[in-house]
């Protein structure tokens, strides 16, 4: 009872913050907040398959691309499409696609979830790490398809003039919903089954858990929210091209979930703020620097070198990340009631 009140208060105050930020903050702060919101959606759903279910996948960039293209095609007005497709005429179905904002991003999510279902048949039939390599390949294939099918995607030119309906009200609220859904999944019967698959697949199978179905469910849920995140990203940036959805995107999300703790949703939320903040703050590393009077020249990629080293060091020395696989609530509860015997 008490916890229900606390939860409701938390949700209401978050919604109030989102509304306040939307109407009062300046556009730079809002753009950072929007970025954090979108990455939170992506990282939370990525953590469901990687952290909670323990199936190492490298898919986010592929599913984000699907969601982004789907949403963009639904949102761009028909006349703009005809003007924009410079390489070939758009396919008739592209011209017919038209929807409001919410159906458009949901369509992106559904499309991504459908692709995830298709991928899970070859991948989850075998044990081992094939998910990682298949999803890594999938990210490249999506790009190849986007470039080679200009009648749907306008090829390497990408899509521009996407209506920017995604303000912080949308992004913040959807991020909040994603968080609530994820927490509920983690503590549900499915979440427990997912953790069982992660910890010992044979034991889970012996307990009567349909591990194939659990893995597929986790993968599809993850893909659905990544597709939605992609749709929001497309509308937030108003322009997308195949080169945006490279492995770099997946890598950033990987850093976030490792830092937050694989399997911890509240850790992921905190890590999203930390990583996105420091990405912004460390921007100077990529630029020309003057050290002892010598110009180092611009080094695009320097930040990523730092983050790659950070990831390796975290894996070697602090594998559990900030919160391990527990949620903030569990950690606080343990602290206050001193039930150390319940701790792992």
């Amino acid at each position, binding site marked *: 009872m008490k916890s229900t009140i606390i939860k409701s208060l938390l949700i209401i105050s978050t919604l109030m913050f989102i509304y306040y930020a939307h109407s009062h903050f300046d556009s730079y702060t809002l753009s950072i907040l929007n970025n954090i919101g979108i990455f939170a959606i992506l990282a939370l759903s990525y953590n469901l398959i990687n952290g909670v279910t323990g199936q190492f996948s*490298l898919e986010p960039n592929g599913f984000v691309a699907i969601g982004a293209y789907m949403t963009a095609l639904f949102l761009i007005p028909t006349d703009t499409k005809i003007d924009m497709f410079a390489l070939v005429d758009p396919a008739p179905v592209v011209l017919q696609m038209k929807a409001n904002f919410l159906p458009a991003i949901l369509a992106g999510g559904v499309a991504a979830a459908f692709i995830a279902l298709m991928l899970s*048949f070859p991948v989850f039939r075998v044990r081992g790490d094939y998910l990682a390599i298949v999803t890594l*390949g999938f990210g490249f294939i999506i790009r190849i398809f986007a470039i080679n099918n200009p009648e749907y995607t306008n090829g390497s030119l990408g899509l521009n003039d996407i209506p920017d309906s995604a303000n912080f009200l949308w992004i913040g609220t959807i991020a909040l919903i994603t968080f609530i859904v994820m927490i509920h999944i983690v503590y549900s019967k499915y979440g427990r089954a997912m953790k069982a698959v992660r910890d010992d697949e044979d034991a889970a199978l012996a307990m009567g858990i349909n591990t194939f179905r659990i893995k597929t469910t986790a993968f599809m849920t993850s893909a659905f929210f990544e597709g939605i995140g992609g749709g929001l990203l497309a509308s937030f940036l108003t322009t997308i091209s195949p080169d945006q959805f490279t492995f770099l995107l997946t890598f950033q999300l990987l850093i976030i979930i490792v830092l937050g703790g694989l399997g911890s949703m509240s850790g992921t939320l905190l890590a999203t703020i930390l990583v996105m903040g420091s990405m912004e703050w460390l921007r100077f590393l990529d630029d020309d620097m003057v050290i002892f009077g010598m110009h180092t020249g611009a080094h695009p990629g320097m930040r990523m070198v730092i983050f790659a080293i950070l990831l390796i060091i975290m*894996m*070697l020395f602090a594998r559990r990340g900030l919160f391990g696989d527990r949620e903030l609530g569990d950690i606080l509860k343990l602290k206050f009631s001193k039930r150390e015997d319940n701790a792992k």
Partner: protein
Amino acid sequence: MDFSTFLQQIVNGASLGSMYALIAIGYTMVYGVLRLINFAHGDIMMVGAFMTYLATSMGMPFGIAVLFGILVSVAVGILTDKVAYKPLRDAPKISLLITAIGISFLLENLFNVLFGGVPRAFDAPEYLTKVLHLGEIYLPVTVIIIPIVTVFILTSVLWVLYRTKYGMAIRALAFDIPTVKLMGANADSIITIVFILGSALAAVGGIFYAISYPSIDPLMGVIVGLKAFAAAVLGGIGSVTGAVIGGFILGFTEIFVVALFPELGGYKDAFAFFFLILVLLFRPTGIMGEDLERSRF
């Protein structure tokens, strides 16, 4: 397609397949021993090509430069294992995979910072870039040399694996690491040998790649590495012979599908992926493999 074009494509396919085979062996051996998809393996190949490029541009003769490239790649391979993989031998598998991704991303971005992301022209010496005309067939010298050198290297690797004590140790390790340790063998130094062999072959593959497509960039290893892994799965992961067969099948497929259906040219890089999906769907153990949980060379 007339006969001379057919022959031409056979030679091209053999050359491309050789490169995939060389790189696939490293994947399959590391997977066989550690059950790890070594994501950094494709980037080791890139290191080999870049270091050879660096040495030639500093004026070293090509032979020495190749040796230098191979040595640096081997050093990077050993270092990766010692620094990043060895402390995680008993950690959950997912930690090992994340570390491998981290190493891969580190190498790509480090070389991006050091050399810039713009592709660079790779200058091979005259005697390697010559083109012979045999009747109607164009034969770049490399296309002949690559398969020959590859066959020689593969025979040597198989000889090491099946005829020497070290090879026996590697095969034993692929079956069961704890038992090998109990028998008094030093598992870590055997794993080092696996990384030396794999990295050296990847470097050779990378140098061949750089000669054939005379341009190199820090991300060249990603897509080739992915294809080589697909080839290893196709042949049966854990099996060296399988990796070679898978590599050649993939090489021939890429060349012939593009030759027969030029409109599919844009999808060339996607074939490996479809192979991977098909193999996982219909014969997850690949051509030579029998059981995924165990493996043999």
